[in-house]
């Protein structure tokens, strides 16, 4: 469709403009209201006793001394909560034969990972709860831990409910792969290891659960991106009517996917509030976050590419083993990442023979699940590293081999060999833009010059495809009660302002800003006059909220359509007041104007005043509709794919293995850009997380399944000093499935940054006999690859 054509010069044309966030000042002034800030009357505090072992049988739990401590109100163990909470199982029906053991808030018989919460203590303060936690004696008979995913595949099942440790396995085969490899002029193969890492949000997980027995009503103030999903979960698992459950997600300090999963702690705290009839606060501390927030990645991939004599890819063959911890997460499961890995492989390239094998395996570690760019960085790194390996083999320039292989911009719509439908992508434009933006030829000359002086610089390139705007094909078809649609309520105030409550949510990325821009733009009013509200299931319509890059594309379209509906209503009233045809009127700069001449006729505030307070002056039978509710569910393509290209420039100190990241470039195409400033922020933040994975971030475990670096001193989050300048350029290919034309951009940076970084390091090390196929690329790993140590 795409009737939208925003001219940037007309008044209130906010779509496409870099405007600042209305909430930034409040947050910078320290006036944010996070769950942690909340204090309710009669509120108690929770702390957990956790398993010190990765795997073990609970022999006994002695809570007597803890219970007796002054200030302790209750101590709960597995049975207490299991008796009121229906178990949950993290499977989706469209993942055939997927399985996972059922989960309960606190374990009944066995502990399955080190750090699993075992006992819940409720006390007058968190400090007292921690004092009591030290008094609990948990006797656990340690069992052998399954830490290594490959061992876990063949080992005896660790859960009594399951026959083995395979959560999910699937194959894709388009046919012709063996033949293509037999006929290939060149074939390359590499094996990769992608370490575990975790989200490390500034604000940790937090909840205040407040159950009121007099009304059988639960209010959960919950630091989550998906309040509606949790409304559903708390309702069904604790047997409270959905309408009696209110989830409020106030200011949230980052999420990145981590805050949309069901965690044992939050479920236990809700249960405790129900049992005690009092509000209970739980805030994960940083040590708890490391052992209980979902981790991500943890993939071992072997990939092969077949190419003909001209360097054209003819086939790709991959095998991915991914370890997800002891349970599949709920309700989105832990199989989505692996599934996306095997479906995104080779996505930018034009070939038809593809085969993939996926094994999703249980082990005794904390759960992995969806985290920013789910699967993309792995598929991208495997593909792009293999393409570079092939280029080296064939003595082709990395740009040249990509230009020969990518799907031409003129050939859309296309279906990938893995079954994804691409509406329209822009690889050729992006790649060409990247090359000129980074001044590629000059960089190569500089690189060669420095190499003579012993300075090893490397340039890495990576193309990517990103999945955005998911339809029900993502979760709904699998039986998960996760909405793909969103809803908005727009209300005119008697002063002529507009209040918008919408189901997409804000975690710092600027959702409320872009929704405000769209509403103001479409209504023709000043942005200051639009107030956006999100994150409360009682006051906003039910919707999907924020995940998988859907806020701008789906939430934005919802807001756009709602605003158009309200505008039509307002023009109808104005027409009655002015005795003019609504079709000849428009709203510009808060005034009702004549569309053709632009002449101001009556202010919107005056229309509001008349409609609200002097309806007696309107023609009889008039019922002015001054609020609208509108829902929008994505239609057309199941997903709106985006694409882009990145490059990374590094300098490797071959003596120490240290890498300096000198510069990073991104060209990306997220369709219609609503706010370039916010898109750039998304891309930069995403790149930093990708570079974090490439060089710094890794949850390190020993053979007993113990996390050995679970603190911010030892787990290395990328910091500003180590990050390069990130230069960004945009290409706009709007989707025609919506009026707005926006697609997602939140995961684009993360999708390809680590791939570009790997290619850059390997480019720097050409001629030194070292190829890195494991991230993070630590100094130790680099020196080992070089044979120095």
């Amino acid at each position, binding site marked *: 469709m795409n009737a939208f054509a925003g001219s940037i010069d007309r008044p209130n044309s906010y779509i496409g403009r870099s405007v600042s966030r209305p909430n930034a000042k409040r947050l910078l002034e320290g006036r944010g209201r996070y769950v942690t800030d909340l204090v309710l009357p009669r509120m108690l505090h929770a702390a957990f006793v956790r398993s010190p072992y990765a795997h073990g049988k609970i022999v006994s739990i002695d809570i007597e001394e803890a219970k007796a401590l002054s200030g302790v109100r209750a101590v709960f163990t597995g049975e207490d909560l299991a008796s009121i909470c229906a178990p949950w199982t993290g499977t989706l029906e469209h993942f055939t034969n997927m399985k996972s053991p059922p989960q309960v808030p606190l374990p009944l018989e066995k502990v399955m990972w080190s750090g699993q919460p075992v006992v819940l203590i409720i006390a007058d*303060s*968190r*400090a007292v709860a*921690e*004092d009591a936690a*030290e008094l609990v004696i948990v006797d656990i008979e340690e069992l052998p831990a399954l830490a290594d995913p490959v061992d876990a595949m063949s080992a005896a099942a660790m859960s009594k409910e399951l026959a083995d440790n395979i959560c999910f396995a699937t194959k894709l085969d388009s046919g012709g792969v063996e033949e293509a490899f037999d006929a290939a002029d060149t074939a390359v193969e590499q094996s990769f290891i992608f370490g575990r890492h975790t989200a490390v949000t500034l604000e940790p997980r937090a909840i205040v659960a407040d159950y009121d027995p007099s009304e059988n009503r639960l209010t959960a103030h919950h630091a989550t991106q998906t309040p509606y999903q949790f409304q559903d979960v708390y309702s069904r698992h604790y047997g409270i009517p959905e309408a009696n459950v209110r989830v409020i997600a106030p200011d949230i300090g980052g999420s990145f996917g981590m805050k949309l999963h069901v965690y044992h702690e939050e479920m236990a705290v809700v249960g405790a509030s129900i049992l005690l009839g009092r509000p209970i606060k739980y805030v994960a*501390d*940083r*040590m708890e976050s490391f052992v209980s927030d979902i981790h991500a990645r943890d993939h071992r991939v072997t990939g092969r590419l077949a190419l003909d004599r001209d360097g054209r890819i003819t086939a790709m063959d991959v095998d991915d083993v991914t370890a997800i911890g002891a349970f599949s997460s709920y309700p989105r499961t832990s199989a989505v990442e692996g599934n996306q890995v095997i479906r995104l492989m080779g996505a930018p390239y034009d070939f038809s023979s593809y085969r993939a094998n996926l094994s999703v395996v249980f082990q005794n570690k904390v759960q992995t699940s969806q985290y920013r760019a789910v699967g993309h960085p792995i598929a991208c790194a495997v593909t792009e590293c293999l393409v570079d390996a092939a280029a080296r083999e064939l003595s082709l320039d990395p740009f040249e081999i990509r230009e020969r292989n990518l799907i031409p911009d003129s050939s859309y719509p296309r279906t990938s060999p893995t079954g994804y439908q691409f509406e329209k992508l822009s690889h050729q434009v992006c790649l060409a833009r990247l090359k000129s933006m980074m001044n590629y030829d000059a960089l190569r000359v500089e690189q060669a010059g420095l190499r003579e002086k012993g300075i090893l610089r490397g340039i890495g390139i990576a193309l990517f495809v990103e999945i955005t705007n998911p339809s029900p094909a993502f979760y709904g078809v699998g039986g998960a009660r996760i909405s793909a649609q969103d809803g908005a309520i727009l209300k005119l105030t008697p002063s002529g302002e507009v209040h918008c409550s919408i189901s997409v949510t804000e975690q710092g990325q600027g959702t409320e800003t872009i929704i405000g821009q769209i509403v103001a733009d479409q209504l023709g009013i000043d942005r200051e006059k639009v107030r956006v509200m999100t994150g409360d299931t009682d006051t906003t319509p039910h919707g999907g909220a924020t995940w998988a890059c859907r806020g701008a594309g789906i939430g934005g379209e919802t807001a756009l359509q709602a605003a158009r509906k309200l505008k039509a209503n307002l023009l109808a009233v104005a027409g009655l007041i002015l005795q003019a045809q609504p079709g000849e009127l428009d709203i510009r700069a808060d005034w009702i104007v004549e569309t053709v001449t632009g002449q101001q006729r009556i202010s919107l505030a005056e229309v509001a005043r008349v409609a609200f307070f002097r309806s007696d002056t309107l023609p009889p039978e008039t019922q002015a509709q001054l609020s609208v509710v509108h829902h929008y569910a994505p239609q057309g393509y199941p997903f709106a794919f985006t694409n882009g290209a990145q490059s990374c420039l590094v300098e490797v100190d071959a*003596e*120490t293995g*240290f890498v300096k990241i000198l510069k990073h470039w991104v060209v990306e195409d997220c369709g219609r850009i609503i706010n370039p400033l916010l898109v750039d922020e998304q891309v930069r933040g995403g790149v930093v997380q990708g570079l974090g994975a490439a060089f*710094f971030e890794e949850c*390190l475990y020993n053979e007993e399944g113990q996390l*050995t*670096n679970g603190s911010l*001193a*030892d787990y*290395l989050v*990328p*910091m500003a*000093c*180590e990050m390069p300048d990130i230069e960004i350029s945009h290409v706009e290919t709007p989707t025609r499935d919506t009026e707005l034309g926006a697609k997602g951009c939140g995961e684009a940076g993360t999708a390809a940054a680590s791939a570009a970084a790997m290619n850059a390091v390997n480019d720097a090390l050409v001629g030194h006999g070292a190829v890195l196929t494991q991230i993070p690329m*630590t*100094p*130790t790993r680099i*020196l080992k690859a070089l044979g*120095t*140590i």
Partner: protein
Amino acid sequence: MKARAFDYMRPKCVQEALEAFVRADGDASYIAGGQSLVPALALRLQAPGLLIDIARLDELRGLSVAGGHLRIGATTRHCEILGSDLVREHAPLLARAAPFVAHPAIRNKGTFGGSLALADPASEFPAMALALDAIIEIASVEGSRRVGAGDFFIDLYETALQPGEIITAVYVPLASAKTRTAFDELARRRGDYAIVGAGIDAEMQGGFVERMRIAFLSVGSTPVRVGAVEAALTGRQLTPQAIRQAQDVLGTELDPVGDEHTPPEMRRHLARVLLGRLLGRLEANV
């Protein structure tokens, strides 16, 4: 991550602090900048019944030159070391090391005496105290005593300090015209504790090393002086050959431990690289 309950007091003088510790029967801890102690309390790695705050005692403050030494009061904060002209002039090695200590927020609170008392083998200042042959002044209820840095660091987080003793000041011999210094460290991120670091304090004349002290951080359970390397270089010029030999000697002298990120052989290798680089630029004093 909440500390266990504790009492807190802020004595008016060192004597009062010392007596308070004795009265608490050992169940007390001094707190200076709190940058190491407070995290340890929050993690419940330590849980003293009483905190005695010595951060504001006048007797423990100040930087001054007296009797051939630079006196550094124990509660001199890292940021003061970093910004001090006296330190730059008289203890240039400390000035070189100071920017590598943590981050600005921590340097604004953390103290020199606290760093030495804690004796983290990965910390910069304990190792530099060793390289500078500093003298540590210690007070107890019995009186005051002085211990050379070489005798102060005993084992992991273990020093010559007896329970209840307070470091009052540290005395660093003044640099001369012949002094040459170099410091560097290899850390994954700026401000992190380093994988390995080293400082050199030497006197050179006409291109020859007259005296040299080298101390490493993060290579053992204490800061480590490498006497054999120093001996191998004393009286020599810092030629590429001499530097290579020194690196070889270092390889046999160090016995570093590994951690989750870094195996021992990596540490040893990086220490060699670092030593080579520092010696290569020592004479130029840059």
